[in-house]
């Protein structure tokens, strides 16, 4: 530091400066000779040992904030106005050596993809040790400290892990290693950019617990960036809501989420199914319109075009940050009346016809799938028996590696199951391979994939993508095809002007609508929804879920809904099947599965989900990660992680059958249902 460095920290000179103080920061990217503003007039403060959350949808500028703080902006980006102080120091005024020192000692970052943050060619121990070597320790000492640090991030057997290469680690483990490296330098500021987004819910819960625990132990401030409101609610003291590069609301996390004071925050919170909301209680509210394009130059409030209560002045002049309570601000003229924000989506719903009694539409009997590679056999599905009722939505949940997608692909005929499996549609057997299926059978089963970028042929136009199933499966042509096409486009709420475009010209939500239109084009009976909204933003997600619910009511289709987001599963599903290591652990009506008594695995999954409503359930924790399907545990496959394993030892030796514990509710567990009810109601009571 130079002696001339100013000390901009407010308050008495003796008080230590804030961990971060950003004032009126603008960031712009220079694209094709033009400056595009990515952040506008962003100001916030992170106190010492405070945990500050930044939420926003993709494109809101969350990551740009993190990059600007550490001066990691790409070459075409620059802070064009305002000031940044990190622990009183100005990174914008630093020379190369000072900047290196800042990044090495004062600020650490953890990114979304742990796999990309680790050097694949260096053993884990050496990578962590490098941080200590930079700090001046000897190699032996550094390695020792690295091992201790791995223990600190709750890696069991850290000595063995130090010898591993990053690719040998699971996602959760790798993220722990990244966190270990980040905190090894004992930074005063730790920036976490979507640190758990790529992880399973159970692993996410563990990593979040770890971060919370380390925070208590270390003298570190946190900047936590996430699109997941519940995660922010759980982890942060204060939160800032970013929208299109502007910090539109700020305040204590609990208050902002319980009583938002900006229409965007209100809308965002209404997009999420909460407190057990289900599709038959009413549609989710969606925010109409789209994020403004980057570099927009609209006068007035940035949210006005999408705001249902916008007035004349909102469009003319940008609102300042109003003080709306202790430590709270909102950039909205109407911050007093946002609670009465009208809904954008009618709450009343068209209910689908009740499932008829004509028998299940799909039956799966003894469906197994074994993948073999290099002499090792991985059993992705083991003897799955499942009925899908006509017109229902069957939710399929489980961690990644539980066999959800394999089950869906077996049903669709994309991954033929092992011999001995019987899949029937309307009581007629379906060929294991889709080439053996009749035209009617092909037509009956369709899928909406998770990622529309991958699922839509990027060289084809929207018209071609949607028209193909109409021609191929529905056998339409000429006028009839055009009419049905127009109808279909309308029913997924797209417009004719979208037809000549190619997928890359559409936003994520529109792309997913195209994929949905394609799936519905042939007039399917059963549609598999494989994480249909996990690649989308929250506000878009609500619109897609509403669309799916509407389409189901209109077209009388049956859904097989795969998701890791239990809130969404609860919202959309009538029944739920819980998968673990290719076996069904629990199957029953959605309400019963959620309210319990439930299988210990379901219980663990549920308690891993952070809640927006601030109810802190006494979590039962899952230790470790899902075992390998090549070498599944003996007895009940869940016993290695089960928090309620019986002392008698039966769980280790005998696999429990999937038995009916109450009408329509099946479970595969040795613990008698009464005992389970007792245990679980006790756990819920504080």
């Amino acid at each position, binding site marked *: 530091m130079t002696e001339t460095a100013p000390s901009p920290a407010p308050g008495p000179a003796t008080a230590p400066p804030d961990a971060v103080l950003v004032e009126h920061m603008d960031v712009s990217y220079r694209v094709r000779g033009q400056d595009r503003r990515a952040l506008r007039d962003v100001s916030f403060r992170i106190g010492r040992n405070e945990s500050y959350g930044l939420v926003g949808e993709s494109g809101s500028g969350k990551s740009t904030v993190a990059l600007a703080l550490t001066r990691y902006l790409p070459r*075409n980006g620059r802070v064009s106005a305002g000031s940044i102080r990190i622990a009183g120091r100005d990174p914008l005024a630093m020379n190369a050596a000072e900047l290196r020192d800042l990044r090495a000692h004062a600020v650490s970052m953890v990114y979304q993809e742990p796999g990309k943050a680790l050097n694949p060619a260096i053993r884990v121990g050496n990578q962590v040790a490098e941080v200590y070597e930079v700090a001046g320790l000897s190699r032996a000492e550094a390695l020792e400290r690295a091992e201790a640090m791995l223990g600190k991030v709750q890696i069991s057997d850290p000595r063995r892990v130090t010898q591993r290469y990053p690719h040998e680690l699971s996602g959760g483990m790798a993220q722990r290693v990244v966190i270990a490296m980040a905190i090894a330098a004992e930074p005063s500021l730790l920036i976490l950019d979507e640190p758990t987004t790529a992880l399973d819910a159970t692993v996410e819960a563990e990593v979040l617990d770890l971060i919370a625990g380390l925070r208590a132990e270390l003298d570190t401030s946190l900047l936590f960036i996430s699109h997941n409101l519940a995660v922010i609610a759980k982890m942060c003291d204060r939160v800032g809501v970013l929208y299109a590069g502007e910090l539109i609301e700020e305040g204590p996390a609990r208050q902002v989420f319980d009583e938002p004071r900006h229409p965007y925050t209100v809308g965002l919170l209404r997009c999420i199914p909460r407190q057990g909301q289900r599709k038959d209680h009413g549609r989710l509210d969606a925010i109409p319109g789209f994020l403004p*394009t980057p570099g927009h130059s609209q006068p007035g409030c940035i949210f006005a075009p999408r705001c249902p209560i916008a007035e004349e002045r909102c469009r003319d002049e940008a609102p300042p940050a109003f003080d709306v309570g202790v430590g709270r601000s909102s950039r909205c003229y109407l911050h007093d009346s946002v609670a009465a924000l009208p809904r954008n989506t009618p709450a009343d719903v068209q209910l689908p016809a009740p499932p008829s009694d004509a028998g299940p539409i799909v039956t799966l009997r003894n469906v197994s799938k074994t993948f073999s590679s290099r002499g090792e056999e991985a059993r992705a599905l083991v003897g799955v028996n499942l009925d899908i009722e006509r017109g229902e939505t069957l939710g399929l949940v489980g961690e990644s590696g539980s066999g959800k997608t394999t089950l869906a692909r077996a049903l669709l005929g994309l991954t033929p199951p092992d011999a001995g499996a019987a899949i029937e549609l309307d009581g007629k057997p379906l060929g294991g391979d*889709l080439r053996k299926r009749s035209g009617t059978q092909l037509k009956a*089963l369709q899928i909406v994939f998770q990622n529309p970028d*991958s699922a839509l*042929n990027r060289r084809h136009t929207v018209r071609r993508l949607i028209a193909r199933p109409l021609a*191929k499966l529905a056998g339409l042509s000429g006028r009839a095809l055009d009419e049905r096409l127009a109808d279909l486009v309308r029913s997924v709420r797209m417009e004719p002007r979208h037809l000549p*475009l190619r997928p890359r*010209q559409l936003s994520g939500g*529109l792309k997913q609508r195209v994929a949905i239109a394609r799936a519905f084009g042939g007039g399917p009976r059963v549609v598999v929804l494989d994480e249909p909204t996990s690649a989308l933003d929250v506000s878009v997600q609500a619109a897609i879920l509403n669309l799916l619910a509407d389409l189901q009511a209109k077209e009388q289709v049956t859904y097989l809904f795969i998701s890791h987001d239990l809130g969404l599963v609860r919202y959309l599903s009538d029944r739920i099947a819980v998968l673990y290591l290719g076996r069904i652990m629990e199957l029953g009506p959605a309400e019963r599965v959620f309210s319990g008594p439930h299988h210990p695995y379901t219980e663990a999954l549920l308690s891993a989900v952070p809640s927006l409503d601030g109810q802190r359930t006494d979590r039962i924790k899952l230790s470790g990660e899902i075992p390998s399907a090549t070498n599944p545990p003996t007895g009940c496959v869940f016993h290695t992680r089960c928090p309620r394993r019986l002392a008698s030892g039966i769980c280790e030796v005998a696999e429990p059958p999937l038995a009916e514990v109450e009408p329509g509710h099946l479970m595969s567990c040795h613990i008698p249902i009464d005992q389970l009810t007792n245990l679980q109601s006790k756990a819920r009571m504080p």
Partner: protein
Amino acid sequence: MTEIVAMPAGAVTSEAEKRGQPVWRLLLGRPTFDVGVAILLFWIICAIFGESIAPHNPLAQQLLGTNKPPSAQHWFGTDSLGRDVLSRVITGSRSILIIAPLATLLGTVLGTALGLALGYLRGIVDTVVSRVVEAVLALPAIIIIFLFVVALGVSTLNQVLIIGFIFTPLIARTVRSAVQVEGQLDYVPAARLLGERSGRMMFVEILPNVLPTVLVEFTVRLGYAIFAVATLAFLGFGVQVSTPNWGTDISASYVLLGAGYWWETLFPALAIASLIIGINLVADSIEQVLAG
């Protein structure tokens, strides 16, 4: 407000931004591409209108003016038969510019079809053919081409067929791996669920997405083909010895290098080099634009 969201603000990479533009405009904006195209156009014009551009008749012999160094009258000098080297260089591109593109085109078409089939259908055929391709790759292509030309004769058609067939497995291998990458994307199972047949899957669904790879492969191979044709001519397997041909001319004159008649070898050699460099410049820029 618009429904066409260009990109999230985080995606500031210029490639993503540029992808919105048509490819040809991106290419023309690159100096390497422009220079490469200029060189190519120059030689194509020479191949077509050579006789009209050339200052002298490339075949006219001047027995009194043999092996003359470059002068005001003969800028590139004369060869051992007194023919004007500049005129022979200008007109000597024709056979190369006929054989090389045709052979490369043949190899690209066949190789793309084979690569699509191997990459999409996979299975035992893929395993066997891939091993054969690796075996072919183990030998320098020029040696194999030479062997076949010696065995089958040196006609233009033979050269096109032989070079084309040799290129087929090489191009197939590249296309195959591009197809396999595409096969990982969900639009492939999505199309299968619509009941699309293999032929349509390969040529309508997948092919448009691997075309950039095919185009890059074509330009890169074209450079090799020119080199191969020139080498064959140099080794005495050029078509129609009477017409000017860079390879043949070098072959006829390089023995005279020791006598100091450097211009007779240098200028045809520079011509070959410039053509290959031109193609490589084009290939590089196409690759950068399409891959970037």
